[in-house]
C-alpha cells in the first residue's frame, strides 16, 4: 500500500488520528514497536474479583506475577495500576528509549496501544480558560471531543461537575459507584451549597467506559478486575481502535519498528527511518505527511534527533501528583457491595479563584482499593504484619485512595534535552523542579482538598509525594502557538520549519490543567487528522 500519511505510535493520539484519517478516505501506514502481553491475558478468568479469589488455584500467577514482580519492593506507589498483567506496557521502553534524570521518573510505553493500556479512563474536557494559551478555541475542539466520545464510548452523569466537564454528545449512563463513594457523595450533597461557595465540588467523573454495548465491547460487568484484565472490553483501549482499523484496506500496521528520525524531501515526501527492534535492521518508509504520536517524550526524541538538535533544551510539563490513603469512618465495620469497578469513583475540584475559571484549580480522584490486594499495604502500616493483616480486614470497606493533581506551566526549571549516547540514538535528559511559589501553592491546594474530604467523613491517613513524573501526564515540549517559532507548532500541529510533519500527542500542549489529558490528546489528534485529511483532499 502506498500511504498518504504515516502515523507513528499506536497510543491514544496515534490510534485516534489514524481512525480519523481512514474515516475520511486517507491511506494510513502506522509504524509502532507494538509490544503485547504474551503471558497473562489468557490466564485471567472473565469473572468477578471475589469469585476468582475463592476458586482459582492459579490466581497467584497473575496477581503476584510469574516472577513475583507484583510484590512491591517499597510500599504502594503511583503506577500501582501497572499490575503484572500490565507490566508489558512499559517493559521495553527503558532499554529502547532511555532517559536520565535525578529529579524525574519517566514512564513510557512501546506497547500496542501505548500508555492507553493502563490509563485511568477519565474523560475530562479542557475549558476555555485552560485553552487560553492554545491557538484553538473550545468551539473548534468540541466537535472532536464528541467524535472521539462516539468512537471510544463515554459514560457520565449530569451533576455538579458538569460545569467543568460538559458531557459529550451521546454519553452513556454513568458507572455505578461503590458503597463508600456513595456515602461520601451523599455527605457532600447534604451540604453542597456551602461547599460550592468555598469553590469545592464533587461528582462522578466521565469515563471512557461503555456502560452499554458498543460494537463488540461492553457493557461494563462490574467485575472489579479493571487493574488486571480487559475481559469485557468495556474500558477503552487504543488497541481496540487499531484492531478495527486493521480490517480496513486503507490501513497498514507495521510493528516492531522503532522510529528514529524523519527527513523531508524536495519531491514533497517525508521519509521515516526505523530500526527493527528484533532484527536490528534499518528500514525506510515514505508518505506525503507524517503525524508523530509517539508520546510527548518519544516524539521529543524523534524531533530533536531528526533536526540534529542534540543539547537543545525544550520545555516539559507534567502534572504534580500526590496521593493520600483515606478512611471513610462511616464505612468502618460496614459491609460494602461486591458489585463495583476499580476505576475512579468520584472526582473533586477545588477552584479557589472563581475569577480565573478552572485555571489553577486542584483536582482529586477517589479510588477504592480492594482489588489491589491487602499484602501490598502490609509494610505501609505501622503494625506487625500479623496485626496489620487483621486490621486491613476491618479497614478495607472504608479504605480509599485519593489521587490529587495540580496544573503545570512552563518555567525554566522544567525541561528535557537529547544528549549524545544511548547507542547512537541519544538519551533524553530530563530536569524538573518546581519553584517555591509552585510548591507552596500545591501544598495549600492539597490541604484544602484533604480538608474537604475530612469534612465529608473520609479521613486522610498521610500524604505521599511519589516524585516528579509520577502522574505520567507529560506535555509541552513543542507548544502550539498562533505564530510558532523554532521548535514550536502551529494550530494544525505542524512543526515550525517543516512542510508536512505534524505532532498529534501531548507534546503540543502549552499548559497542563489539573486533570487527565488523554481525552484532549485524542480530540486534538482527531482535529489535526481532520485538517490534514482536508488538505490532502
Amino acid at each position, binding site marked *: 500500500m502506498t500511504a498518504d500519511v504515516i502515523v507513528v505510535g499506536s497510543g491514544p493520539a496515534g490510534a485516534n488520528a489514524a481512525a480519523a484519517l481512514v474515516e475520511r478516505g486517507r491511506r494510513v501506514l502506522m509504524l509502532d514497536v507494538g509490544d503485547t502481553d504474551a503471558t497473562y491475558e489468557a490466564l485471567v478468568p472473565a469473572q468477578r474479583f*471475589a469469585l476468582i*479469589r*475463592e*476458586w*482459582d*488455584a492459579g*490466581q*497467584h500467577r497473575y*496477581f*503476584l506475577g510469574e*516472577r*513475583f*514482580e*507484583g*510484590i512491591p*519492593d517499597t510500599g504502594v506507589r503511583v503506577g500501582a495500576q501497572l499490575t503484572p498483567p500490565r507490566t508489558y506496557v512499559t517493559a521495553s521502553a527503558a532499554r529502547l528509549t532511555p532517559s536520565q534524570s535525578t529529579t524525574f521518573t519517566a514512564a513510557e510505553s512501546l506497547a500496542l496501544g501505548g500508555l492507553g493500556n493502563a490509563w485511568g479512563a477519565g474523560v475530562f474536557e479542557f475549558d476555555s480558560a485552560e485553552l487560553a494559551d492554545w491557538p484553538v478555541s473550545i468551539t473548534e475542539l468540541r466537535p472532536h471531543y464528541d467524535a472521539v466520545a462516539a468512537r471510544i464510548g463515554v459514560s457520565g452523569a449530569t451533576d455538579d461537575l458538569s460545569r467543568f466537564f460538559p458531557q459529550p454528545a451521546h454519553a452513556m449512563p454513568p458507572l455505578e459507584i461503590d458503597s463508600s463513594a456513595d456515602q461520601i457523595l451523599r455527605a457532600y450533597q447534604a451540604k453542597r451549597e456551602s461547599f460550592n461557595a468555598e469553590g469545592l465540588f464533587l461528582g462522578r467523573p466521565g469515563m471512557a467506559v461503555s456502560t452499554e454495548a458498543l460494537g463488540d465491547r461492553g457493557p461494563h460487568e462490574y467485575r472489579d478486575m479493571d487493574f488486571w484484565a480487559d475481559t469485557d472490553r468495556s474500558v477503552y483501549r487504543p488497541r481496540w481502535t487499531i484492531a478495527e482499523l486493521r480490517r480496513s484496506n486503507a490501513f497498514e500496521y507495521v510493528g516492531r519498528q522503532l522510529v528514529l528520525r524523519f527527513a523531508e524531501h524536495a519531491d514533497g515526501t517525508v521519509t521515516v527511518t526505523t530500526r527493527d527492534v528484533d532484527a536490528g535492521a534499518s528500514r525506510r518508509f515514505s508518505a506525503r505527511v507524517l503525524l508523530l504520536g509517539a508520546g510527548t517524550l518519544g516524539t521529543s526524541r524523534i524531533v530533536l534527533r531528526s533536526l540534529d538538535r542534540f543539547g537543545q533544551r525544550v520545555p516539559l510539563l507534567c502534572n504534580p501528583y500526590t496521593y493520600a490513603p483515606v478512611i471513610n*469512618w462511616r464505612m*468502618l*465495620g*460496614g*459491609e*460494602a457491595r461486591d458489585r463495583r469497578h476499580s476505576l475512579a469513583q468520584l472526582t473533586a475540584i477545588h477552584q479557589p479563584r472563581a475569577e480565573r475559571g478552572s485555571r489553577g484549580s486542584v483536582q482529586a480522584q477517589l479510588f477504592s482499593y480492594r482489588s489491589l*490486594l*491487602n*499484602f501490598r499495604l*502490609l*509494610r505501609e*502500616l*505501622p*503494625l*506487625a*504484619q*500479623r*496485626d*496489620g*493483616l*487483621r*486490621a*486491613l*480486614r*476491618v*479497614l*478495607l*470497606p472504608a479504605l480509599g485512595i485519593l489521587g490529587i493533581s495540580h496544573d503545570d506551566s512552563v518555567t525554566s526549571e522544567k525541561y528535557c534535552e537529547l544528549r549524545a549516547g544511548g547507542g547512537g540514538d541519544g538519551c533524553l535528559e530530563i530536569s524538573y523542579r518546581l519553584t517555591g511559589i509552585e510548591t507552596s501553592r500545591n501544598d495549600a491546594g492539597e490541604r484544602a482538598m484533604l480538608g474537604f474530604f475530612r469534612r465529608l467523613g473520609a479521613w486522610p491517613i498521610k500524604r505521599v509525594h511519589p516524585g516528579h513524573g509520577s502522574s505520567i501526564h507529560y506535555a509541552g515540549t513543542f507548544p502550539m502557538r498562533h505564530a510558532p517559532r523554532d521548535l514550536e507548532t502551529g494550530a494544525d500541529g505542524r512543526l515550525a520549519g517543516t512542510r508536512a510533519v505534524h505532532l498529534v500527542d501531548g507534546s503540543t500542549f502549552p499548559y497542563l490543567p489539573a486533570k487527565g489529558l488523554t481525552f484532549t490528546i485524542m480530540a486534538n489528534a482527531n482535529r489535526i487528522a481532520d485538517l490534514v485529511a482536508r488538505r490532502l483532499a
Partner: protein
Amino acid sequence: MLTRYLLDAECPDEMVDRYVDGCVARSLTGTDTVTAFVDRHPRSVALLDAAGALSGRAGGLRARIQLMAAILETSPRFVAEFFPAAGSRARAMLRLTAYGLATAARTVIGFPLLVVLERGAP
C-alpha cells in the same frame, strides 16, 4: 513458621515451594542476623516484625513475611482470612485499638532485641 505466625495455620507443601521460588525471584535468599535468629527462635518473629514495623528496620525479615502473606492471600484455601470482616463501628474501633496495642506490646520487647541483633551483625 510464617504461615503459623500470620494465620495460625499450617502451610501446604506447594505453598512452601512457591515461597522458596519467591525468595529466589526477589533475592531474599541471603540470611541476615535477624532472619537467622528467627530461624532458630520462631516465636521471636512477632516481636521482631513489630519492632521493624515501628522502626523501619528488619527489612529482610519483613519482606519475607510480606511474600508469605502475598502467597497466602492469593490462595483459595486461605483467602477468607483476607476478606473484609463486617461488624459494628464500635467493634471495628475496638479491634483496631487492640491490634495497635498488640504491636506496641511486642515492640517493647522486640525493639531492644532487634538493636542487639543488628549490633551483632558482621
